[in-house]
């Protein structure tokens, strides 16, 4: 991976000026490269990983992984049904996978009931959907390569020669 992408993948808040210093290039060339990545869709979006379990002032939201079996359509294969499914705002992610089902869909809702309603009233009845299996998420340990627990690193000395 390009160094600029490597840096931004770890921390999207590092500014072009800082990146330029870190990799020994001009600010202009870094800005240009980032712009190009954005235009080409290589950089899709900059967002924050939140550990929802730690937010106390709001009721915790519920997530579910849903296995979806679908009937491929002529010419468009799975894409058509996938597009209709990922269009729902409740859907956080949607991927075509190999194995005993076709789409892995991650859905978020206020509580178990809303997610169950989504599956029962919107997802399952959809044309082309042959079956679903819903797994509610109980605890998330790691997301996007990031361990969510705050590390308490006492392994090393503060100072050594």
């Amino acid at each position, binding site marked *: 991976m390009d*160094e600029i992408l490597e840096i931004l993948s770890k921390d999207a808040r*590092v500014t072009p000026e800082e990146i330029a210093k870190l*990799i020994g290039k001009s600010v202009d060339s870094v800005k240009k490269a980032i712009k190009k990545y954005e235009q080409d869709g290589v950089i899709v979006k900059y967002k924050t990983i939140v550990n929802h379990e730690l937010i106390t002032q709001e009721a915790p939201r519920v997530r579910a992984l849903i296995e979806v079996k679908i009937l491929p359509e002529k010419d468009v294969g799975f894409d058509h049904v996938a597009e209709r499914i990922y269009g729902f705002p409740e859907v956080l992610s949607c991927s075509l996978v190999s194995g005993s089902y076709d789409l892995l869909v991650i859905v978020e809702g206020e509580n178990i009931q809303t997610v169950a309603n989504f599956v029962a009233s919107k997802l399952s009845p959809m044309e082309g959907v042959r079956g679903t299996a819903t797994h509610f998420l109980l605890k998330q340990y790691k997301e996007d390569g990031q361990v969510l627990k705050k590390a308490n690193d006492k392994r090393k000395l*503060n100072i*050594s020669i």
Partner: protein
Amino acid sequence: MTIPISKRVENLAPSGIRAFFDLVLGMKDVISLGVGEPDFVTPRRIREKAIHSLEDGYTSYTSNKGMIELRREIVQFLENRYGLSYDPEEEVLITVGVSEGLDLVARAILNPGDKVLIPEPCYVSYGPVVEMAGGVPVFLKTTLESKFKVTPEQVEKACSSGVRALMINYPSNPTGASYSKKELQAIADVARRKNLLVISDEVYDELTYDFEHTPFATLKDMKSQVVYFNGFSKSYAMTGFRIGYAAGPREVIAAMTKIHQYTMLCASITGQIAAREALHSGLKAVAEMKREYNRRRRFIVDALNDIGLDCHMPEGAFYVFPSIKKTGQKSMDFAQGLLKQEKVALVPGTAFGSSCEGYVRISYASSYENLKEAVKRIKRYMKG
């Protein structure tokens, strides 16, 4: 009763630095730029190999010189990496870190009063290991202006009678300074003319940023008078495993092995097995760490110069050695003040030699976030 301590040990320079270290260790929430080791943990595959070896019951002594498989693989590695060839049976010794190796070589070659040239600033143990072996360290002072590099003229001039060896470390702890092949060749020419044994500590070799690292033993006609030292601590983030090695002329390795077998017996088998895995699978991790360090190096040099601390761009390792002379403070006062007021720990230059007053060592083996915050605090401290 008071127990008398050996004069030799008593005469070793007392470490004023100890008290400072204790102070740091007693404080909470310190941002530390004072560590002499990578901030990465050992790559997972290497750790797993060590765990499996314990599960499989590898818990015994090894041969005094170290596992022959590891010695063979090191020889192979040096051959592939640098075109250096050694006999794994007679010319390689596995040590408990390079630190043990340096102690062994000093004791193996020095007679009372023999002198060893040591460019300064230098790693803290260089002077003491020479003294404990009965030798006399002769420090060759280098400064920011010369980018902390010793010159062939300095070496030549210092070669009075009784000078046996040159103990050199590049890339350097604490300055990060390293030498190009051409610079080394000029020093080698003097060493050859003056029959100096070159004790070359190259433990930071993989962390060389601006040019290819050149082992001293690869310089023209030098191999027969160089003892090459390297280890796994810095390149593979394996400081706690304590595995280093020495490669050199068989008579020196044999003498070192003699001392090693009576004192250390052998390096830990777990560490040696982990080191083998490092050679098998670790280079990719090394490349990643190096890229990361290189970014931090650029950041820290720039940031320190920005806030008024003169700092040269070091060629290797993960240290910078800025001058704090503009603040008018002594190294130790600067370090203590910074620690107490702003909770940033770094190492006073004086830990690395009496000529290093007016400098501090900053380790950039710390996250970018930490480095940024630390620079902010140093700036505030200097204003206040």
